[in-house]
């Protein structure tokens, strides 16, 4: 009997008892559906993380210099030179000097505004766009100019349209606004739009410090992050001779950690969902056992007409595999449906753009696993059927 004919026969038998077939498939449908929903949720979460992290700059290294245990200090010019000499590895560098203190517009105090002293390259480095005016310039740094560039939150909430040329007070000193940055977040208090950038020379003076303790370094591309980091580490070790004197930290590292955490979670959840696949498989085994008993006479007739053991075996295994394969296909459809439904619900409820995307590999694996389950769990009852003695089977009522 040809393979294709056996499949045809299997489908005919399944259609012969639709409700039973559907109930048998249910376990597989739910299992496959659940695995697909979970993996697509994981996939969506990962994409969301990658997107939001790359907007923060996955190609930026943050260097913190503690200088601990070393008498040597790092000069910015020294670092700047190194960065410029290795343009295959780096793009830009800027000090990032945190300024503690109070910010006032008139008599109003801004409590959560973060102030950073930067060089003229910082806007390029962070891909910041100005909506008005200009950014911090080299002359501002050399002249210790009291100029600032403000985030959209401050511009929108504390000033009228005409922002450029207005002043703010930082730690009692008057600074002139020369530029306004485009909105990058939601223009709310304390977020990345509630910021002030000023020349790092002025920032150091405000902070009462003479040493720059942290830098942002933009690497050439995301592919060179590791190489750049390694190079920077050697360079810094040459200066300090002490690994504890500095710290290099990259966003991409953090992203990697988060991604692997999500992946572990997805694998655990998918494994739990896969349990229902096994339960579904047992359902298929059960129904195949019943069907072998019910069809004992048919087996006897077929054997008397010349069916060999493998013919009978093949018939039942293919029937079980077809059941689980059809269940798998329905489950995939169900998974897709639930995924797009989930995308809709999440975007409605969380106001975030997480799209649940089933990966092709998870679909393929789910289908493969469900067919395998059919074959594995159909095997035992099919073997029983194949071994039936034709005389006993013919007499069976």
């Amino acid at each position, binding site marked *: *009997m*040809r393979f294709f004919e056996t499949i045809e026969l299997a489908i005919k038998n399944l259609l*012969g008892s639709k409700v039973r077939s559907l109930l048998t498939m249910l376990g597989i449908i739910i299992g496959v559906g659940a695995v697909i929903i979970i993996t697509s949720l994981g996939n969506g979460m990962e994409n969301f993380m990658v997107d939001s992290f790359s907007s923060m700059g996955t190609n930026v290294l943050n260097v913190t210099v503690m200088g601990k245990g070393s008498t040597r200090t790092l000069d910015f010019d020294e670092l700047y030179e190194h960065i410029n000499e290795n343009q295959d590895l780096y793009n830009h560098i800027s000090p990032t000097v945190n300024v503690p203190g109070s910010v006032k517009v008139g008599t109003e105090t801004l409590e959560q505004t973060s102030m950073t002293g930067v060089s003229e390259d910082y806007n390029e480095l962070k891909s910041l766009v100005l909506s008005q005016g200009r950014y911090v310039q080299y002359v501002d740094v050399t002249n210790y100019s009291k100029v600032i560039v403000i985030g959209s939150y401050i511009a929108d909430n504390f000033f009228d349209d005409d922002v450029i040329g207005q002043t703010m007070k930082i730690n009692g000193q008057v600074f002139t606004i020369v530029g306004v940055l485009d909105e990058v977040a939601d223009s709310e208090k304390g977020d990345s739009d509630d910021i002030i950038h000023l020349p790092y020379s002025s920032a150091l003076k405000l902070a009462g410090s003479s040493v720059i303790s942290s830098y942002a370094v933009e690497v050439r591309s995301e592919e060179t992050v590791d190489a750049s980091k390694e190079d920077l580490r050697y360079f810094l070790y040459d200066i300090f001779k002490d690994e504890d004197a500095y710290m290099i930290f990259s966003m991409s590292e953090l992203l990697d950690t988060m991604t692997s955490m999500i992946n572990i979670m997805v694998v655990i959840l998918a494994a739990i969902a896969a349990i229902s696949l096994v339960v579904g498989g047992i359902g298929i085994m059960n129904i195949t056992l019943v069907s072998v008993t019910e069809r004992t*006479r048919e087996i006897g007739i077929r054997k008397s007409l*010349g*069916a*060999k*053991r493998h013919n009978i075996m093949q018939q039942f295994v293919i029937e079980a595999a077809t059941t689980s394969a059809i269940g798998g296909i329905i489950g995939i459809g169900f998974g897709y449906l639930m995924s797009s439904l989930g995308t809709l619900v999440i975007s409605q409820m969380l106001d975030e753009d997480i799209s649940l995307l089933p990966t092709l590999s998870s679909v393929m694996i789910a289908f493969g696993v469900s067919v395998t389950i059919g074959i594995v769990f159909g095997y035992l009852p099919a073997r029983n059927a194949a071994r039936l003695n*034709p005389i006993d089977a013919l007499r069976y009522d």
Partner: protein
Amino acid sequence: MIDEPLIVFKDIYKIYKMGDFEVRALDGVSFDIYKGEYVAIVGQSGSGKSTCMNIMGCLDSPTSGLYHLGGKDVSDMVDDRLAEIRNEMIGFIFQQYNLLSKLSVKENVEVPMQYAGIDKNTRNERINKVLERVGLSDKIKNRPTQLSGGQQQRVSIARALVGEPSVILADEPTGALDSKTGRNVMELLREIHEEGNTVVLITHDNETAGEANRIIRLEDGKIVYDGPPDHEHALFAGLKEEVYEVL
């Protein structure tokens, strides 16, 4: 080799052990059947005729003895080889028709050819031929349950013929039919025999057995008569002594 018998039964024993108890279903049975014969194997229930038919039909193997079918020794073949032999050489007609109820008439007749691996065109040709032969060409798409008993038995005859077997084995073919349809079926069997087929009929019914050209009567697993149907002892389960005298 015209002279070689199609079926050779030589000292066939079939012994069932039930605990300490031994049942000799066939107790040293020997006979030859030649191509083109029409033989009835007759006996009361328990006489061993069903066992005889199972062994002849390659559904079962004898405990001891020699069984040659078409020149091949099939006495101790394995399961799958026996299935092949059944497929190639034997056409079964059962008392209960044994049709597959989920398949149409056409599909039922097709089953033996599926296992033989015959191509689709030849199959269709043969199906049409045999269904026409048994007069059911118009019922080709029906399910067996939509047919009368006589029609179902004719489908099973068609199924037995379609593989062009060496022997047609009919096990109580009229047992489930009323006498009129039974006679029709017997008529069909006779015609099939007259077309050159070897037919072996298994029955307990003397009238049915009388259709055959040769009677083999079994009693308690032994042959008590083997000869033409018109002999005075052929159709009656006579006293053993009497019959042995005849032999």
